[in-house]
């Protein structure tokens, strides 16, 4: 069991990692021939990684977002995150897993072979990056389920404080079906379109963050700004909760990134240290820029930098080095800062919690940056023949496909939901706040 992986093997692993589910369909067949080993250390690690991603959703993301809205809309945000996650978990079991990883060999989806998790038992195993090393398929299903559950919840930040609760639920159900499951298949399945162009996406930069960011932008544009946007005080009702949420997101993100390695080995620890250093670099960069440009470093800046860095390192975590990660994080953070504080102000849309500005922009910087910092010349794990130029082109293609698929899909779905249910609550309800008007509750009493 002593390790002797060469750098060359490492980059191959990473490439394999991008489509780590490749092996599942063939497992039953392959099982006849090779010995499959399930290591309890891997199982222990992947269980905790799965739990960590749930922790990111409730209470992590819920608090990060919730703290940023006004008191009167707090519960609506918590509710949306919770309900979307629960709904997508049920959908995942019913047909989502099958659409993404059902064993079908189409370029766009995995077929319906595993609806209702047909045929999966506690003995079913799923392949990892390493030949012959497997983990229980239930565990793989659960781990991937948490990714599917968090992604639509990320989007809600774009139209917080004004969307109808029924609309957000219907949109999310449609969106995971039309956008998320196909893109997950395209990126991570061996038969998937984007996988086959050779894109690197270790832990879901395209599938999760760019996807969510683009849908958020479309949503913000189509739903329109909040009443009083740009005039009324709309400062975060609790920066404390936002920091708590951001901290939980950081903690949980190790499940995301180091968990995407599927095994508890040196590769996972590389993803882990990168998830530390990229984030640290990004925090310092955002706060540093503010200190220089505004004279004051803000806590929301530090938290925003934190998330930018985490987003950017997501696709890169398994293939870059820890010093490269500091630089990648810092760059992504700077770009997001510039976008959120300068560019956004020039346009007239209200992406209330900057989902596009941080997840979309940060995700794109991360995807491109992965093509750069994986280079061994920059301390990355790429092989000797790694070419930054050609990998960047591939990464850009992956981004392009995701953006187009997601933008069109999301626009159609928002329109559809608008026709069926209407997207916005009425003016009185928005003034009163969604907590009371949509849920009949208030967040705080004395």
């Amino acid at each position: 069991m002593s390790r002797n992986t060469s750098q060359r093997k490492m980059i191959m692993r990473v490439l394999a990692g991008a489509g780590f589910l490749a092996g599942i369909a063939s497992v039953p067949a392959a099982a006849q021939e090779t010995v499959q080993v399930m290591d309890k250390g891997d199982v222990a690690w992947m269980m905790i990684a799965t739990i960590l991603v749930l922790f990111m959703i409730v209470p992590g993301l819920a608090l990060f977002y919730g703290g940023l809205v006004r008191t009167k809309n707090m519960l609506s945000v918590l509710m949306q995150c919770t309900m979307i996650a629960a709904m997508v978990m049920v959908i995942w079991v019913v047909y989502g897993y099958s659409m993404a990883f059902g064993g079908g060999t189409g370029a766009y989806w995995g077929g319906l072979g595993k609806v209702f998790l047909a045929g999966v038992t506690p003995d079913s195993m799923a392949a990892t990056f390493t030949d012959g090393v497997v983990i229980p398929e239930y565990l793989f299903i659960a781990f991937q389920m948490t990714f599917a559950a968090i992604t639509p919840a990320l989007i809600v930040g774009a139209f917080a404080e004004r969307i109808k609760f029924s609309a957000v639920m219907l949109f999310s159900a449609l969106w995971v079906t039309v956008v998320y499951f196909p893109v997950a298949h395209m990126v991570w399945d061996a038969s998937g379109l984007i996988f086959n162009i050779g894109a690197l996406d270790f832990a879901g930069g395209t599938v999760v963050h760019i996807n969510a960011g683009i849908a958020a932008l479309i949503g913000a544009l189509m739903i329109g700004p909040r009443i009083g946007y740009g005039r009324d005080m709309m400062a975060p009702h609790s920066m404390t909760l936002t920091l708590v949420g951001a901290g939980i997101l950081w903690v949980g993100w190790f499940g995301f990134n180091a968990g995407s390695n599927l095994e508890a080995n040196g590769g996972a620890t590389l993803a882990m240290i990168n998830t530390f250093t990229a984030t640290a670099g990004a925090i310092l960069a955002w706060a540093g820029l503010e200190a220089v440009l505004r004279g004051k470093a803000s806590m929301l800046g530090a938290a925003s930098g934190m998330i930018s860095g985490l987003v950017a390192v997501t696709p890169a975590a398994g293939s870059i080095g820890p010093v490269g990660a500091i630089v990648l994080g810092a760059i992504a953070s700077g770009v997001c800062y510039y976008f959120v504080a300068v560019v956004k102000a020039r346009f007239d849309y209200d992406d209330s919690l900057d989902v596009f500005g941080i997840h979309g922009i940060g995700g794109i910087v991360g995807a491109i940056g992965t093509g750069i910092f994986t280079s061994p010349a920059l301390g990355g794990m790429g092989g000797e023949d790694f070419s930054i130029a050609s990998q960047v082109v591939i990464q850009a293609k992956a981004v392009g496909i995701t953006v187009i698929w997601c933008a069109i899909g999301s626009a159609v779905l928002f329109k559809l939901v608008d026709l069926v249910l209407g997207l916005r609550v009425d003016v009185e309800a928005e003034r009163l706040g969604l907590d009371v008007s949509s849920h009949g509750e208030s967040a705080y009493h004395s």
Partner: protein
Amino acid sequence: MKYIIAAIKPYKLDEVRDALTAIGVRGMMVSEVKGFGSQSGHTEIYRGAEYAVNFVPKLKVEIAVPEALADDVVDAIRKVAKTNKIGDGKIFVLDLQEALRVRTGETGEDAL
């Protein structure tokens, strides 16, 4: 001098403040109150327990003004705070006998 107390809708505060400074008001105090009036509240349910919230959030604005400015102040608030929806608020005018600015010791209208 007059002491004017007004109940207004919370989101009208900035407009009220601007209107008042425009006509020469140089100070005020604002506090959050629970208002009771013709505007009805709402119901909240927590599991089985139902609570009628009879009070509506309002802001109370208090302004000490020179005699001469009192009517303008009332007019200004009235114009800006009005939405023609129930619950727009009320304005009350009391007589103010004396005023004093702590920092300078100025009294009377000079203190306002």
